[in-house]
């Protein structure tokens, strides 16, 4: 390897409010390599790369590119230094053509438009060279996701770059498109470019990389040559951490089946398949966890169970009753409680009071309403009771819920959902965005619910959360349930492999 690294990142730190996204990251990228960044959600991969390409400015630390210390104020400055990034969310104007998207913000628009023929010619030339199949006059919104991604990659090449950063490029691709992308990365390297590939899919990373860096909690914990490691080791590095809590398992064996999902299939709002023939059972007195990297169909699974997303095929049975495709009002009335993933979107109305938020589902039912009018005294008493029992820190029940901390908001949501006396509780991200104290509290509350015979399905991207309270853990990958494991820490790497989509142990050189 050369003396001076192509790109050197030295002790970068970045905070967003209380969240530390980069906690002193150091990383070196060699010229002409494919360097993969591996890590769970929130490990800090995307933020780190956004700092290299000028989207985000680091608080501390240094970035040295081609031997020079650089500090970009915008992606355009990074492009000028020949660093380009393709983001997970495409940055294209949907109703413009490919060529028009490329010249946006490029110097004098009038001059460029006069040169439109040259722009088209150059796009065709690059498209042919890398077999990208991009037509310069195609309108973006007519293109498939895979095509749009090639348009994005070509855009970066069009501007001329030496370092290409791809942020989770395969997340939206079909297997065939993925193969194509991986071979394109090889072609780019042959042309003297350097590629940074962000992913959490082990097999892809193992296939294309020269070196792999694993990130965890805002730091690079390991950088290895691909020949010196294997998928199992990488998985352990990726997820391995101390589980902070061990809470008591259920003393009783689980009882009857409360929720039963049979071969359920549904699509995301984008129309793409998201949940593929999922079957699972949750019994009374049992907490079943679903682990997985986010974006593998967990959101759609929970929305479909709650009646917020149409089910394409399959059945959902609750207490032996078919609830498939019922509207949320009926599902809510069938002993079904739901602690939603996105609290601010679904769970609460931020500008309304705690009282109003506690009766969100039962605003027209006795005793909270009679003869069409809200019974404010009863609602107030009920809310005060929940505030006290769940130790929600608030001024009073008339305070807007948006004024509380995330943990206290979540406590109120949990309190509301448990107060509805459910048989089944669907939880998606129990402890997202809340402090340790509140987390411990809501987890203990879940265990109490389990011990009193309720059936709980806990979807989470936080392994800690799952290990702490689940009786068994299913792994969801690409819309399918891949495995069913006990929450046994010794099988952590097996879990990691399943989360990365590997159902059997790959035979790789150690």
């Amino acid at each position, binding site marked *: 390897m050369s003396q001076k690294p192509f790109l050197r990142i030295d002790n970068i730190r970045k905070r967003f409010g209380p969240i530390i996204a980069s906690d002193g990251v150091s990383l070196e990228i060699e010229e002409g390599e494919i360097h993969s960044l591996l890590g769970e959600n929130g490990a800090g991969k995307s933020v780190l790369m956004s700092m290299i390409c000028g989207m985000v400015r680091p608080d501390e630390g240094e970035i040295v590119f081609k031997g020079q210390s650089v500090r970009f104020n915008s992606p355009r400055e990074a492009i000028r230094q020949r660093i380009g990034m393709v983001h997970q969310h495409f940055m294209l104007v949907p109703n413009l053509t490919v060529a028009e998207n490329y010249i946006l913000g490029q110097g004098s628009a009038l001059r460029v438009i006069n040169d439109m023929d040259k722009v088209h010619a150059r796009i065709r030339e690059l498209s042919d060279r890398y077999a990208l199949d991009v037509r310069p006059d195609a309108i973006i919104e007519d293109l498939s996701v895979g095509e749009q991604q090639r348009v994005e990659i070509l855009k970066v090449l069009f501007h001329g770059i030496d370092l290409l950063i791809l942020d989770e490029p395969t997340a939206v691709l079909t297997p065939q498109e993925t193969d194509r992308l991986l071979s394109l990365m090889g072609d780019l390297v042959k042309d003297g470019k350097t590629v940074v590939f962000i992913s959490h899919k082990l097999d892809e990373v193992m296939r294309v990389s020269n070196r792999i860096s694993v990130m965890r909690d805002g730091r690079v914990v390991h950088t290895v040559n691909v020949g010196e490691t294997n998928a199992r080791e990488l998985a352990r590095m990726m997820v391995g951490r101390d589980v902070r809590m061990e809470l008591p398992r259920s003393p009783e064996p689980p009882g009857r089946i409360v929720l039963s999902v049979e071969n359920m299939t549904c699509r995301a709002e984008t129309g793409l398949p998201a949940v593929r023939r999922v079957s699972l059972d949750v019994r009374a007195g049992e907490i079943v966890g679903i682990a997985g990297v986010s974006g593998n169909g967990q959101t759609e699974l929970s929305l479909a169970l709650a009646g917020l997303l149409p089910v394409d095929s399959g059945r959902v049975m609750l207490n032996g009753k078919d609830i498939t495709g019922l509207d949320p*009002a009926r599902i809510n009335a069938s002993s079904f409680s739901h602690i939603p993933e996105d609290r601010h*979107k679904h769970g*609460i109305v931020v500008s*309304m009071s705690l009282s109003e938020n506690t009766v969100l589902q039962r605003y027209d039912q006795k005793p909270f309403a009679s003869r069409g009018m809200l019974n404010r005294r009863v609602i107030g008493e009920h809310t005060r009771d929940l505030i006290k029992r769940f130790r929600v820190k608030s001024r009073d029940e008339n305070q807007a819920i948006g004024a509380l901390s995330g943990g206290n908001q979540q406590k109120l949501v949990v309190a509301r959902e448990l107060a509805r006396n459910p048989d089944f509780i669907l939880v998606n991200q129990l402890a997202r965005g809340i402090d340790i104290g509140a987390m411990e509290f809501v987890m203990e509350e879940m265990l109490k619910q389990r011990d009193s015979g309720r059936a709980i399905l806990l979807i989470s991207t936080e392994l800690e959360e799952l290990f702490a309270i689940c009786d068994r853990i299913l792994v969801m990958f690409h819309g399918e349930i891949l495995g069913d494991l006990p929450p046994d820490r010794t099988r952590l790497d097996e879990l990691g492999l399943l989360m990365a989509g590997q159902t059997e142990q790959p035979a790789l050189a150690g």
Partner: protein
Amino acid sequence: MAQVNQGVRETVYPQAAQPLYRTLSQIAISAVTPIAAVLVALACGAALLWLNGFNGSDIVTVMIFGSFQDMRSVGEILLKATPLILIGAGLCVAFRCSIWNIGAEGQLYVGAIAATLVGTNFDGLSVWVHAPLVMLAGALAGAAWAGIAGYLKVRFQASEIVTTIMLNYIALILTSYLVTGPMRDASAAYPQSARLIREAWTPRIVSDMRLHIGILVAIVLAVALYIFLQRSSRGFALRVVGLNPHAARYAGMQVARNVMIAMCISGAMAGLAGAFEVAGVTHRLYQNISPGYGFEGIAVALLAGNNPLAAIVSGGLFATLRSGSEVLQITSQVPQVLVLVIQGIVILSVVAFAKLRDILRIVA
């Protein structure tokens, strides 16, 4: 009342009953901001007049006090306030549900047409039957007209801003067609409908003033809508849908039904305002029966912070300014364009202060 700490882990916050104090402070904020908005606007208007060579200081006295000369002029202000309060209070309900009904003007016209149809027919009914029937007809017609836009929204996701504006044109042109064609009073030189039957007229409060009981109806309905929004289950659902439709769906509320209800309530109020214009003021249908009450009603609701109770005050304020600007034109030779500019400044200032009030509410 203060409370001792009950647990070791966390402080129990005092749960004293503060609602009265808090309600009062909210009302104070609601009341002070509109007045401040108008004062700032009038100050700007005064400066504008002064720059144009008029006596700027007159503007405040003329626009606010000029129209309060005697009981009769107060009656005229209340007459103008009637449609503004009705429409403003109705729009509060729609806006609270995040339904941007810009079509109150059209709904007013359709209400006026329906009121005219009922008021010119059914001879021989008593005033106790005929007058309320006219009001009911206006309200139903307005609700139905708004319901078209509501249906297009829930069924085809058509923007109600666009559809209600387009329905305004249809209603206005329909009125023109009717008073120049099928409903025209053949004996009149000017395009207008036949006169309403005496029993269909909205009863006056004092026999020698034009002011009719519509103002009382408007105030009662505004109070009723306030109670509906704040205290009823349905009103609660409307507010949740308006603030967070995702949470509404999660909670099992029927978003489409609530949208239709909010739309129809605001339409009914505008339709009723149209009925009162015909049955209470002109007693005939004309092409230009409304001087833009439907649009001014939007500003009334905005100034009221979408609170129907406050719409009574802000409706009265806008009526006062409307009368005042008429007086200003007559007494001081200020060109009408300048009066329009001043009215525009009032509305801009109202919007700015409405935003300021929302900020204050959060702080309070």
